[in-house]
């Protein structure tokens, strides 16, 4: 009996509770399955073969770089042709040995013999290497049909999985980062716990203004040039700006230590809880879809920007939960013990209090991922914010809406979205029940 108590850990208890919920456990396995599909998407659906032998050369085209170019020589050392991997139609080559990907089509490759919505079970055509147009062999059949320009739906779904999961992960990653930090600060310090000398307080405010001026105002051309060069260099410039912003604030806070005049050194409270709570209230009072649509109407369409917007607008729920947990935790003995030992507030917050506040946050992140995926697919369905050349579940469904005869374009992407959202919601519900038995309903 004693031994079990010693080994009792909350994580184990929660996991055991979670495991009891069969539906949730199945959902977790399904999620794992989706992750595997997303990770191996390029090898599951690709119009380049996984392995092939052509004129005596062994090649692994699906694993090679897309833009690779090879000069092919036959056995006698005579030049045959140049193969550029991404534009070669591999099906038309006389391959002596070949292993195709399970779905032998890329999401964006257009099969011009099966344009105009080829139905899954209907007649599909195929051009053999010898140049005849035949009924399609089973290996190359579009198992879930095609869209109006001959793109394979199954391949689109597989590659769409990657985008869907990424949207959930990236946007909720951003939201969690903002929400946890702000919520923790607001909950831990409240309105009357964070003391600062007056001079430090005002210099910090000036530091924020100056930090924005030098970090973002002064460097705005560098940032916009960076984004013109590409997304990565743009993000890099933003990172530099952000570091500059932080350095300036820290510098001014250091300067504030020099001042020794007593009237400046009077301590005042920083109403950090009020700031955060007002921010949450403000963001909550703007309908989220409208906010996201408005912003994405103004900026260039890009899937990354959509993720960032969903993240930046989605942190309020997480912040609210974190704040509530911290309000409770900050008066507990172990936090007070940590403080009386002289640990810094930062250390107390992030090392001692935060791990114990994460349970409800985890639940709201899981719900948040579901709603992020829902919003992203809604946006792609409307064709707002997400560029057309990226195949997502949402814009596949939109293609189906435009041509109701192509029921497969409605049914399969819709079910994919629905299942993913349900999986996340199920996991979130079950983990809520497991992590916080009080909330169980």
């Amino acid at each position, binding site marked *: 009996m004693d031994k079990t108590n010693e080994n009792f850990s909350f994580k184990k208890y929660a996991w055991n509770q979670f495991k009891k919920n069969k539906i949730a456990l199945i959902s977790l396995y399904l999620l794992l399955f989706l992750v595997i599909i997303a990770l191996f998407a390029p090898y599951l659906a690709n119009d380049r073969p996984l392995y092939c032998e052509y004129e005596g050369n062994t090649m692994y085209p699906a694993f090679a770089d897309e833009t690779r170019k090879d000069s092919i020589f036959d056995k006698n050392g005579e030049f045959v042709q140049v193969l550029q991997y991404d534009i070669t139609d591999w099906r038309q080559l006389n391959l002596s040995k070949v292993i195709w990907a399970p779905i032998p089509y890329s999401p964006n490759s257009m099969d011009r013999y099966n344009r105009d919505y080829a139905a899954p079970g209907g007649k599909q055509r195929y051009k053999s290497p010898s140049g005849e147009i035949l009924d399609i062999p089973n290996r190359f059949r579009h198992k879930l049909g095609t869209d109006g320009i001959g793109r394979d739906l199954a391949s689109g779904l597989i590659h769409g999985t990657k985008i869907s999961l990424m949207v959930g992960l990236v946007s909720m990653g951003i939201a969690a980062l903002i929400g946890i930090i702000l919520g923790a600060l607001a909950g831990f310090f409240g309105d009357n716990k964070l003391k600062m000398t007056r001079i430090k307080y005002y210099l910090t405010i000036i530091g924020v203004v100056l930090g924005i001026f030098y970090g973002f105002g002064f460097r705005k051309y560098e940032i916009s040039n960076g984004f013109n060069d590409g997304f990565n260099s743009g993000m890099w410039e933003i990172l530099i700006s952000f570091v500059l912003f932080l350095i300036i604030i820290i510098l001014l806070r250091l300067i504030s230590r020099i001042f020794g005049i007593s009237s400046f050194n009077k301590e005042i409270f920083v109403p950090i809880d009020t700031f955060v709570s007002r921010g949450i209230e403000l963001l909550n009072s703007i309908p989220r879809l*409208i906010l996201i649509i408005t912003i994405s109407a103004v900026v260039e369409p890009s899937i990354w920007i959509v993720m960032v917007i969903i993240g930046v607008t989605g942190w309020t729920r997480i912040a609210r939960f974190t704040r509530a947990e911290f309000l409770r935790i900050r008066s507990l003995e172990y936090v007070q013990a940590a403080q009386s030992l002289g640990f810094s507030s930062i250390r107390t917050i992030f090392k001692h209090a935060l791990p114990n506040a994460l349970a409800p946050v985890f639940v709201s992140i899981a719900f948040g991922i579901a709603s992020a995926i829902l919003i992203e697919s809604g946006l792609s369905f409307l064709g707002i914010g997400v560029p057309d050349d990226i195949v997502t579940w949402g814009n596949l*469904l939109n293609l189906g809406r435009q041509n109701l005869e192509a029921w497969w374009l409605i*049914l399969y992407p819709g079910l994919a979205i629905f299942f993913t959202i349900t999986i996340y919601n199920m996991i979130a519900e079950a983990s809520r029940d497991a992590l916080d038995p009080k909330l169980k309903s």
Partner: protein
Amino acid sequence: MLKYVIKRILTFIPMIIAISLIAFIISINAPGDPVERLTKSAGSEGTADEQSGASKKEKQEIRKKLGLDLPIFYINISNLSVSDTLYKIQDRSHKDNIKKLVHKCGNWNVVSEYYKSILTFERKSKKLIAEEILIQMYPEIDSNQNRKKLLNDINETINQIGFEVGSLCETSESNLIDLKLNKIQSFIDSNSYLTHLKTDFEKTKKLRGDLISEATKWKTYIPTILWYGTKNQYHLWLFGNGKDRKGVIRGDFGISYIDSQPISSKIWDKIGISFGLSIISILLAYLVSIPIGIYSAYKKDSKTDRITSLVLFILYSMPSFFVGTVLLLQFANPDNLSWFPVSGIQDPTIFDPEWGFFKKLSHRIPYLILPIITYTYGSFAFLSRIMRIGMIDIVSQDYIRTARAKGLGEKKVILKHALRNSLLPIITVFAAIFPMAIGGSIIIEMIFSIPGMGLEIFTSILNKDYPMIVTVFTLSGFLTMLGYLIADILYAVVDPRISYK
């Protein structure tokens, strides 16, 4: 209580200001030049050159009307090198370019002189007329073919110079500027009829040198605050100027880029349909979800409860755009079942505005069934879940136990004691009905082509009609806040337990 209401209203005001600021920032940062959009929508035709001459005055007027000749905000944090008159430059791309040049060089005087000299040069080079030059230069020429060829050459040169000078106003990278200047230089050197431009060109070139030699880069490092007073774009947008602009607070949201119609009247035309739809569907959702919620809370953990919970959960996870499209596919599709019309809210060929209310309604009902189902099921699942959880929470309270202990029947306990209090959380949801009328139905109205606000927003996003988008944003933010305010006050009135410290 009164104190709480007053305090709540007072926090409402800064929120509204914040919303208006966000909306304004978005509208300022919208890409493209509003004047260009409005003149285009007015439908002016002709070659580019004719247009620039003819509609210059018109553009000026639109610019003035939109207040684009004013500074953006009350104050502007900028740096020492920027003049407080920068906003007066009209062309947006020129303005951006000058900003870049000032950022690079830091000396406002030199940059403005340089810009002015380019403008003078441009004006003079535009006065060149090929025919006159031809007569002056080659008075003796008579062969028609030669004449044509020379005329072509001269025209070509003039056009090239015009192009280079024009693009000079939009170039900030120093090697590109040098390239363009060299090109113009070579034109002037090789064509004798351009000699009178030489002095102006030399001046531009000298100022170009000054951009580098007299650069005061240090000035760009020093922040300054400029104060413009109430004559600024935000103030005009919000409060109007008392004449032609009435301002957002009096319901003037500007004019649409698409058809130059006032946005407020466009919204007024469309909002009725969306509002009606959302009222009907919300009421239906309440009618269904309250009994379901009560029942499954009453029979908690029974088989029926589990099944309804699962079904509600699945409905809740179902994206509305999927449901809407599937309904269309299944019930408004000649291949499957053609029970309902595909789109719209009425048949324009037989619809008669003279009809009475009921006749109109009965005509429209088949059009509304699918959208209302799509509209309702999501909120119905959501409401039922809230209702069930709230009810379970209430049932475990002490006073319910007391009611049971004193021997009341289960029916009476639930319907009389528990129900009233479990309805409270649902008040909040009702507050969401107004903003839903403005924007919540974008996807549904797009699927079913219902000519309401949602479809209007959708088309305005496709056409990049920013005034409309920003207006919808402002209005829905305002209405949501108003809804929350009303809900909070109602709460305080209905439920005295809530403490408001």
